[in-house]
């Protein structure tokens, strides 16, 4: 990593009542990245986040902000930095005696000299961005968990922060909402360009959107780097921890988890004669186009439908599938030649019209008030696999052969996207 870190922990130790929570922690967080912190309960993830914003101070060690130790900064200098950091609490920490509008406008009212009308305008802009217009006069206790999370996010973003700290933003939400919140974070990160530091266990989606992963392990940093590198590390305890988080099933789509998929693939290689051929297909749908056209929730429901349909369809013929990015599904067909696999994919694509495209059409017709029109293509790339192929190599081969197998076409006029 060439750029200097935005935030750096040097030998940071924190104890509570004699119990060491952070033990000599060294880590770096870089600008304009999504950094995800994971770790078992009680490993000090929230404690670490609270050190970044100054809610806690280290017992030993130093935290550097853009290369300057925080403890050596003058109060005004630190306040200047801190005003650019926003914190999204795990329990939202909304001011429960205030309405949604008052909550979102609160940081501007208290920390700026903007006129009342301008404050309200900015707060309303964030409220509308987060689709909360109908809740503007309600109190937090009158909102659902997901809406409260969005209000907290609106409040965190209203001051245009440069760094946003997210403490378990998806906890307690269903798979669709979890993905919605993650999508929201990514969408607003792109829109407003902040650095995101997030605690989340929402596997695999959180890894698909993270640039870097920090694994806290027994008070220290067990791993720091890209998620792909974490999987390649040969540290048994961390490996076991990642597997325990991964579970057996992808919550959103019902497909196999990444680890379960790997186990199936290894078992298949073990049970198949070396000369026998197997095939694979990589399916993809452009989630970002779906999101722009239908809204995040509808796009995720469409992705869920595609996952569930793919799982059901290919399980029946002996295949197994898993998601390998937010919107790509890899299916392995054991002991099937490439011609047989192509035939299966062709049948699948013919039936896709009823299984998934109809679902997208229903969602789109529900949103027919929208002025824009869009086409959605479902891609598939069928490839042969040899016993030496790794999963990443199969994905690369599948990606190279991808072509459109089914299309949802706009049928109510308007411009195509």
């Amino acid at each position, binding site marked *: 990593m060439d750029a200097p870190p935005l935030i750096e922990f040097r030998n940071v130790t924190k104890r509570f009542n004699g119990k060491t929570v952070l033990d000599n922690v060294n880590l770096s967080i870089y600008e304009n990245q999504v950094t995800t912190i994971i770790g078992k309960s009680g490993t000090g993830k929230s404690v670490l986040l*609270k050190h970044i914003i100054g809610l806690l101070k280290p017992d030993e060690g130093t935290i550097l902000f853009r290369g300057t130790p925080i403890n050596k900064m003058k109060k005004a200098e630190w306040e200047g930095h801190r005003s650019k950091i*926003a*914190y999204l609490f795990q329990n939202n*920490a909304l001011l429960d005696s205030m309405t949604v509008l008052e909550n979102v406008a609160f*940081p501007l*009212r*208290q*920390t700026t000299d903007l006129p009342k009308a301008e404050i309200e305008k900015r707060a309303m802009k964030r409220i509308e961005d987060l689709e909360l217009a109908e809740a503007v006069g309600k109190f937090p206790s009158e909102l659902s968990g997901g809406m409260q999370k969005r209000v907290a996010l609106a409040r965190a973003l209203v001051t245009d922060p440069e760094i946003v700290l997210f403490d378990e933003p998806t906890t307690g939400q269903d798979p669709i909402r979890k993905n919605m919140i993650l999508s929201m974070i990514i969408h607003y990160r792109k829109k407003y360009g902040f650095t995101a530091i997030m605690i989340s266990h929402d596997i695999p989606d959180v890894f698909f959107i993270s640039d870097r992963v920090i694994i806290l392990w027994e008070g220290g940093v067990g791993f720091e780097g890209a998620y792909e590198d974490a999987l390649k590390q040969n540290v048994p305890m961390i490996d076991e921890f990642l597997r325990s988080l991964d579970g057996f099933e992808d919550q959103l789509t019902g497909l196999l988890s990444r680890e379960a998929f790997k186990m199936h693939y290894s078992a298949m290689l073990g049970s198949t004669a070396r000369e026998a051929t197997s095939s694979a297909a990589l399916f993809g749908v452009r989630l970002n186009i779906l999101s722009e056209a239908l809204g995040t929730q509808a796009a995720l429901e469409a992705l869920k439908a595609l996952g569930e349909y793919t799982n059901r369809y290919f399980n029946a013929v002996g295949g197994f599938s898993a998601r390998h990015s937010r919107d790509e599904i890899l299916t392995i067909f054991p002991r099937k030649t490439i011609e047989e696999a192509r035939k299966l994919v062709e049948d699948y694509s013919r039936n896709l019209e009823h299984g998934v495209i109809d679902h997208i059409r229903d969602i789109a017709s529900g949103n027919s008030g929208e002025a824009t029109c869009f086409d959605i293509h479902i891609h598939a790339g069928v490839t042969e696999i040899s016993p030496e192929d790794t999963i990443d190599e199969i994905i690369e081969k599948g990606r190279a052969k991808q072509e459109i197998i089914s299309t949802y076409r706009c049928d109510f006029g308007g411009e195509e996207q």
Partner: protein
Amino acid sequence: MKERDETNKPVNMLVSFFSTVGRWTIRTVGNFGAMAVFFFLGFINIFRSRQIREITSQTYYIGAKSSLIVMLVALFTGMVLGLQLFYTLVKFGSVGALGSAISLSLVRELGPVLTAIMITARAGSAMAAEIGILRNSEQIDALYTMGVDPIRYLISPKIAASIISFPLLTAFFDLIGIIGGYITGVVLLGTNGGTYFYRVQSSIDMVDIRGGFIKALVFGAIVSCICCFQGYFCHMRSDGFGAKSVGLATVSAVVISCVMILVSDYVVTSFLM
């Protein structure tokens, strides 16, 4: 081994006694120091910008909303005083001094003390509970992360509102108490009304009123500081967490405030006399 333990028993008991007393002393002195710093920060932040609206709303809550209960207590306190003092004074043939006795008791002592205790029960407990809940639900941390000083936003308006409300409500208490005394002494028991008010007017000096107001100011500062402090640091209590810590903080706020009202009443009175 057992024999040695038996020999050391008195020594161990002594060490245990001193360590307990020592720990308690250190903790208490530490708490007083922390409370003094807390009050100082809360007080100086009253004069920062964006405080008028919060101070006004807190004055309404602590002052205006407590006025009815304070006046009700004042009325019956005055009536009871009128009753008791009438039957005492009648034995010495000095019923004419009823107005003096009631007004001096109220203005110098009962007015400030009972007003402070009533506000503690009504608003002080609410302050501790409200701040405690804000602490436990991380709303105080949220204020800090939004760049809002929690002491300025939450504590200073309450201290300011208490310092404003306590003397005003004390004045109400004194007035209604004197009327309460008039109802029993004059209306019900037949003392002369003109004598009653003449005695009230002639016996009360400005020094008495000033003394009563000084006490009310001191009580306002003490009660608001103790109640806010107990709520603000309820998460650091060793005897309970979560909702229990809020309950315990509220109990401590009311009990310590009431005790400190009486202790400081003695101290202030001894300075004023």
